[in-house]
C-alpha cells in the first residue's frame, strides 16, 4: 500500500474471513492430529490485527507473540505457507522448523511469532531502533497479550523505547485472560493502558472488536510517529472465543460472558456496517466466505502433500554459515 492510500474495506473483511476460516480449519486438523505441539487460536480477535495492518504500509515491521497465525496471514503470508507450517512441512513459512508459535516471514516484514511471554517486546524495540538508526520513516507494530505486561522485559522495553524516542506502537491485545488468569487477578492497575503513562508514552484504549476504530486510531498514531519518531501504546479490548490453547476448555469464564462478546463479533460488525452503507450485498458476502473456505481447504491439501523438512538438512539452520560447532 502507498502512503495516504486506504485499504479497501471489503478486502479487509475478506481477510478477516480468511483468518476465521483458517483458524477453524486448524482447530479441526489439530483434533485430527495433523498439527502437533501447542496451537493458540485467534478467533474473536480478528479486528485487531486486520485494523492494524490496514493502517500501515507493507514495509512497516510487525512482531507478535505465539498467537500469531492471523498476524502472518494479515501481512500477506499465504494460507498455504501458514497451514504447511502448522503441519511441520518444508513448505511452511518457517520451513517446518518453527511451528504454530514461531511463524516468520521476512519478505512480508513479519518478524515472528515468539513464544516466551514478553521476550519479543525488546526485539520490537530493536526493530524500531534500526529504523531510527537508518533514518527511515517506517514504524514497528509490536503486539502482545495482557499477560505480557507484568514481565520485566516489557517494562525494560517500554522505558528504552521512550528514552530513545523510537518509532513503535505497542499494541496490547487485551482479551481479558492470560491462560486462566484474568487481568483482575494479574494486574494491579484499573486499566492496562495506564502502564504506558509510567513511561510517558501516550496511550489510548480502542474497541478491539471494531475494525474501523482500530484502523483509524492506529492510522492517527502512525501518522504522528512518521512525522517525529516516538513510541505509542494502544490497549485493544478484545476477546478470544476459544480456550487459551487447544487443550483448554476455558472453564474459568461463563457462557454468558462468551455470548456477550459473540454478539459483538468483529466480522458480523464490519459486515453490517458495509451492508448498511450499500457497499456489500449478502450474495457478495457469501461469495467472500466461500472463497475463504476454499483457500483454506486448498491450504490443507497443500500442507498434506508437502514434504517433511529433509533430515540431511538438520544442521543447516543452526549457524548462518552452516558450520557445525
Amino acid at each position, binding site marked *: 500500500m502507498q502512503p495516504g492510500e486506504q485499504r479497501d474495506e471489503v478486502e479487509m473483511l475478506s481477510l478477516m474471513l480468511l483468518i476465521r476460516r483458517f483458524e477453524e480449519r486448524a482447530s479441526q486438523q489439530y483434533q485430527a492430529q495433523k498439527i502437533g505441539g501447542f496451537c493458540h487460536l485467534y478467533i474473536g480477535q480478528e479486528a485487531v490485527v486486520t485494523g492494524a495492518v490496514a493502517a500501515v504500509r507493507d514495509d512497516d*515491521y510487525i*512482531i507478535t507473540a505465539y498467537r500469531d497465525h492471523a498476524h502472518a496471514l494479515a501481512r500477506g503470508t499465504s494460507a498455504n505457507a501458514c497451514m504447511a507450517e502448522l503441519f511441520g512441512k518444508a513448505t*511452511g*513459512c*518457517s*520451513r*517446518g*522448523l*518453527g511451528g504454530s508459535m*514461531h511463524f*516468520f*516471514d*521476512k519478505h512480508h516484514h513479519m*518478524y*515472528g*511469532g*515468539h513464544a*516466551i511471554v514478553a*521476550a*519479543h*517486546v*525488546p*526485539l*520490537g*524495540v*530493536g*526493530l*524500531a*531502533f*534500526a529504523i531510527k*538508526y537508518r533514518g527511515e520513516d517506517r514504524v514497528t507494530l509490536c503486539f502482545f497479550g495482557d499477560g505480557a505486561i507484568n514481565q*520485566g*522485559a516489557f517494562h*525494560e*522495553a517500554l*522505558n*528504552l523505547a521512550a*528514552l*530513545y524516542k523510537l518509532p513503535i506502537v505497542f499494541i496490547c491485545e487485551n482479551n481479558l485472560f492470560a491462560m486462566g488468569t484474568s487481568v483482575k487477578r494479574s494486574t494491579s492497575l484499573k486499566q492496562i493502558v495506564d502502564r504506558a503513562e509510567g513511561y510517558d508514552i501516550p496511550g489510548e484504549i480502542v474497541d478491539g472488536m471494531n475494525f474501523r476504530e482500530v484502523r483509524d486510531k492506529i492510522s492517527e498514531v502512525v501518522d504522528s510517529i512518521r512525522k517525529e519518531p516516538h513510541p505509542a501504546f494502544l490497549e485493544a479490548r478484545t476477546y478470544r472465543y476459544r480456550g487459551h490453547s487447544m487443550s483448554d476448555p476455558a472453564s474459568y469464564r461463563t457462557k454468558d460472558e462468551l455470548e456477550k462478546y459473540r454478539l459483538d463479533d468483529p466480522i458480523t460488525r464490519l459486515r453490517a456496517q458495509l451492508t448498511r452503507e450499500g457497499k456489500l450485498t449478502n450474495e457478495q458476502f457469501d461469495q467472500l466466505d466461500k472463497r475463504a473456505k476454499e483457500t483454506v481447504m486448498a491450504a490443507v491439501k497443500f500442507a498434506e502433500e508437502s514434504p517433511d523438512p529433509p533430515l540431511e538438512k538438520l544442521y*543447516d*539452520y*543452526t*549457524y*548462518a*554459515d552452516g*558450520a*557445525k*560447532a
Partner: protein
Amino acid sequence: MREITYRQALNEALAEELERDPNVFLMGEEVAEYQGAYKVSSGLLQRFGPKRIIDTPISENGFAGLGIGAAMVGLRPIIEFMTFSFSLVAFDQVVNNAPNMFTMSGGQFNIPITFRGPNGPAHQLGATHSHAMENFYASVPGLKVCTPATPRDAKGLLKTAVRDNNPVLVLEAELLYSSKGMVEPPDEELLIPLGKAEVKREGSDVSVICYAQTVPLALKVAEQLEEEDISAEIVDLRSIKPLDEKAIYDSVAKTHRVVIVEQDHPFCGVGAEVCYRIQKNIFDELDAPIIRVSQEDVPMPYNECLEHAVLPNAEKLTAAVKQVCYA
C-alpha cells in the same frame, strides 16, 4: 608488532570495526559518557558520537533484546555486559532469542550480534560477581563462544566476532585487562578465526589445555616445571565453541598426557566435554587418566584465602601435572 594492553587491544578492535562498517554500534551500561566500566570503550563516544556509542539504563534483558531485534534487520550490534555475571538477567535473550531465531525462522533471520564483557572470577568480588559463564553458553546450539587470553587474541577474536553472521560471545578475562602483549600495528588487519586453538608453548611431556585466565597460570606453572625437567605444552583453546579438536588431538598425540585447567565449575564444565572427546576419539594415545583442574564446586567465597583455594591455582595445577606424569 608493538606492546599494548588487553584493554587497548579490545578498544582498537571496537574502533576498527566501528570505522569499517556503519551498521556496527556499541551499546551497554556506561559505555559512552563514562568511557566504559573497565574503560574498554574509552574515547569511542568522542570519535563515533552518541548515535553509535549508546549508554543504556540498567536493563540487560531490554538492551540485549533490542540488539537482537536490530540484528534481525541487518544491524551488527555489539552489546556490552558490564560483566557476564549480569548477563544472567538477560539469559532468556541470549539463550532463547539470539541462537534460536535462525532455526525457528527456517533460515530467514540470522542474528549477527556480539555480546562482550568481562567474564570469570576477578578478585574478591564474591559469589554474585564471579561467574564464569563459558560452559553455560557453550552448551547452547547456535551460539559461538570465545575466550581470549592475550591482547593479540582479544583484538583478533573480537574483530572476527563482529563480522560473524551468528551470535558470538566474547568472554573477556577481567583479570587480564591490564596485561600486556605484542600485537600487530593498527594498519595490519588482525583477524583470528573462531575455532582455532593456539599452542602458546611447545612441550613434550604433558599437554595442558587451558583458556582465558588459566593461560597465564599454565604458562607460569610450565616454567617452574621446566626446572624439574617436566616439559609442558600449553594449548590455549581461544574458542570454546567451535572447539578446535584437531589442535587438541595433535598435542595429545605428541605428549600422551593431559591436564585440563578451566576457570568454571567442575560439574558439567568445559573440561568435561574436552575430556570426553579426547577419550572417545584418541583413547589409545593416552598413557594416563586425564585430570581436570577447575574451581571448587562451591559459590565463590569473599575471603581472599578461601577464594584462592576455590580457584584453579599454581599448586593445584602443578600437582595435577605431576600426577599425570607419574612424577
